[in-house]
């Protein structure tokens, strides 16, 4: 045995953070592939998109220049094909006019071939122009900028990607990590071979980014998830004041339910942006393993985390769901079986202790209780797969896809309340509301 007699050394501490906010303007060619490429870059790097300008943008030269000036970008990412060269060169002239006096000057990152880079570099002067051969290099550079030279910072999005990769490798299946924080929402799809597709949206979250959820999703779309009636001005006030509150888990049931409503829309909009950037959203929805982290994983009840996930993500297959709060260990919380049936159907549930049949009525939503950690296989009604039940058991979701909520309060509120009750996502005593 060796006993150290030396002086104690401090433990190396790594700080997990979102990094500094990086404002990115996207200039892209006329093709949809070009638009998707730059959007993918921005989402993968966790940068905030402050302007998007297409090569064939209808705005005049002056308007484009003013939009870029108002956006105050830290970085301008430019991508396009050969036939976009002249139009992109003109956009760089607009950038020179708009941001020539900005300090520090924006940097221009080009994902273009070498001859085109040579031309665009001329038009980008006096801005620093860097050509990148591949998207991952730009993503790495953008992340370095977010670290602002502080090597001690471990970016939260990188950590979420590691978690998704680890889950995929461990289970040898595709895995999805869903992370919703105060200011950001992330979706990371990891495949067993280590490849990942990631979308990190900033600002879009439950605290400082809550108002952005309302702006993007509309207030009515947030309100529709609440199992009680609330008038729009009162809800808006709560949301706006969230942006000024200090971080910390919600303490009252009303606050938890509001966070749940915001989280659903944040996840849904992250999916929309991911689809817009050409990410494989179908694979995200059908991932056999799903990990929930961040504020959504820190809700008091596992059912609350699971409900937010199924409403926001709308899984389309059989998935095992885990959650890992920021201050806690990962736990398996349940298995989701998504059934799309037009008429009543049966699904077989097979486990080591035997098999059973569940009758699924279209629109139904509920838990099948079973042991906390049971290997389960399901078959029938257009769904087939296997996974492990968690603390809550197996959730059979036959509400259909896409999930449509009744418009009238009188029909929607009871339905939403019923879904909450099915997952024990609300307390018996509602007095805290």
């Amino acid at each position: 045995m060796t006993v150290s007699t030396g002086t104690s050394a401090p433990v190396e501490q790594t700080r997990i953070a979102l990094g500094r906010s990086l404002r990115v303007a996207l200039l892209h060619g006329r093709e949809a592939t070009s638009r998707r490429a730059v959007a993918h870059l921005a989402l993968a790097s966790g940068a905030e998109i402050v302007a998007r300008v297409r090569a064939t943008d209808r705005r005049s030269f002056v308007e484009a220049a003013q939009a870029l000036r108002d956006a105050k970008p830290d970085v301008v990412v430019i991508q396009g094909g050969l036939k976009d060269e002249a139009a992109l060169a003109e956009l760089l002239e607009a950038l020179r006019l708009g941001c020539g006096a900005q300090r520090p000057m924006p940097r221009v990152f080009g994902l273009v071939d070498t001859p085109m880079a040579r031309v665009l570099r001329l038009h980008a002067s006096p801005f620093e122009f860097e050509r990148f051969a591949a998207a991952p290099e730009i993503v790495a550079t953008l992340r370095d900028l977010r670290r602002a030279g502080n090597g001690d910072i471990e970016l939260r999005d990188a950590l979420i990607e590691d978690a998704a990769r680890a889950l995929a490798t461990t289970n040898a299946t595709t895995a999805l990590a869903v992370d919703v924080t105060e200011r950001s929402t992330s979706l990371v799809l990891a495949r067993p071979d280590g490849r990942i597709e990631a979308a990190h949206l900033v600002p879009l979250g439950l605290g400082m980014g809550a108002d952005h959820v309302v702006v993007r999703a509309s207030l009515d779309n947030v309100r529709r998830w609440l199992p009680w009636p609330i008038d729009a001005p009162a809800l808006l006030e709560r949301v706006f004041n969230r942006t000024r509150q200090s971080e910390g888990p919600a303490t009252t049931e009303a606050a938890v339910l509001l966070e749940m409503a915001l989280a659903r829309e944040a996840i849904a909009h992250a999916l929309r942006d991911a689809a817009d950037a050409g990410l494989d959203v179908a694979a995200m929805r059908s991932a056999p393993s799903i990990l929930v982290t961040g504020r959504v994983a820190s809700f008091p009840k596992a059912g609350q985390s699971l409900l937010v996930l199924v409403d926001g993500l709308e899984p389309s297959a059989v998935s095992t769901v885990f959650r890992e709060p920021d201050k806690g260990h990962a736990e398996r919380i349940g298995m989701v079986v998504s059934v799309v049936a037009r008429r009543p159907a049966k699904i077989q549930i097979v486990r080591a202790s035997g098999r059973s049949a569940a009758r699924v009525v279209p629109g139904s939503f509920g838990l099948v209780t079973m042991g906390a950690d049971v290997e389960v296989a399901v078959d029938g009604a257009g769904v087939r797969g296997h996974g492990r039940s968690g603390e809550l058991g197996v959730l059979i979701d036959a509400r259909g896809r896409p999930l449509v909520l009744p418009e009238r309060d009188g029909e929607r509120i009871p339905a939403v309340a019923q879904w909450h009750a099915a997952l024990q996502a609300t307390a018996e005593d509602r007095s805290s509301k």
Partner: protein
Amino acid sequence: MWRRERWSADHSLPIGVTTRAAVGDHVRAGDIIGAGATLAGALRVPGARRLGLAPTDFDRELRVPVGSDVVAGALLARVGRRFPRSVTAPTDGRLLHITVDGDLYIAPIVDRWKVRATLDGVVARSDDAVVEVEGEAWCLQGAAAFGPDAIGELMLGVDGPGADLAASRIDVRLGGRIIVGGAQISAEVITRAHACGVAGLVAGGVPPAGLRVVYGDSVTAAGSPSRDDRPTVLCLMGFGSAALPRAVFEPLAALGGARAAIHTRSARLFVFSSAEIGRAEAPSPDVVLTGEGPAAYVPARPHADVDQGGAREEPAQSDEELSPSASDRGARGRGP
């Protein structure tokens, strides 16, 4: 909380700047520190190619500095003696930009704009995008601000920190003033105040639904500074209704009548007064209720109480001499 120290306020300039204050200039809140033209769609005019010049040599032949106003047919550049070639303006407008290729952008002028200082002080930075002013003032940091910067005389519109400002108390006599609205101001008050020419409103809170009515659905809790003709609102505490703490309200009352400015980008209220309000025994307002309307809430002795230093504050200045912008200065004598 209130703090009196040296502050910095940056003022973004739109594209089309004609003149702006120079670094080192002394300015007062309300002074024009930048002016320019609002431009419509620009025309691209071949320059170096038409003259048969290399783009790098084109600057030398340019007869009009970039940033100048030109009339249709004005000579912009010319080369040659026996066989001259020239570039002329195709339309009235502003010579806006010269490209790397040596082409020119000329944009018609559709309007004029002015940017006014929100601080008494010295211009610390001045370029075609920003004029930054540094100066000393009393400052109250707010939560969020909406609309354009505002400059005017500070005036108490309520009789207590927990009172809401009623729309009926706003009329045209308050034009040009910054009104302190207590715990809450509604959308009706905001729109009425704007219609009556009130420079700005300050309150503990503003209902976000009201903000959406006035500023649109894209408004966020971070505020929305703008340049267009909209009301100016500063939320000090948050959203909804928020009674102002005494430590905030009493100095506001004591500073009534002083020149003030709302800098919306930083959500700050600057007040230009030498009054000492940091002390606990800062005077509370003597509000005289003499009838209905805003006049009823004017402090009885605004300057006597506020300005203990004895220097009576002057009203906001509205105009000033300007120095030309950098792009104008170099070639002023070479105009067409």
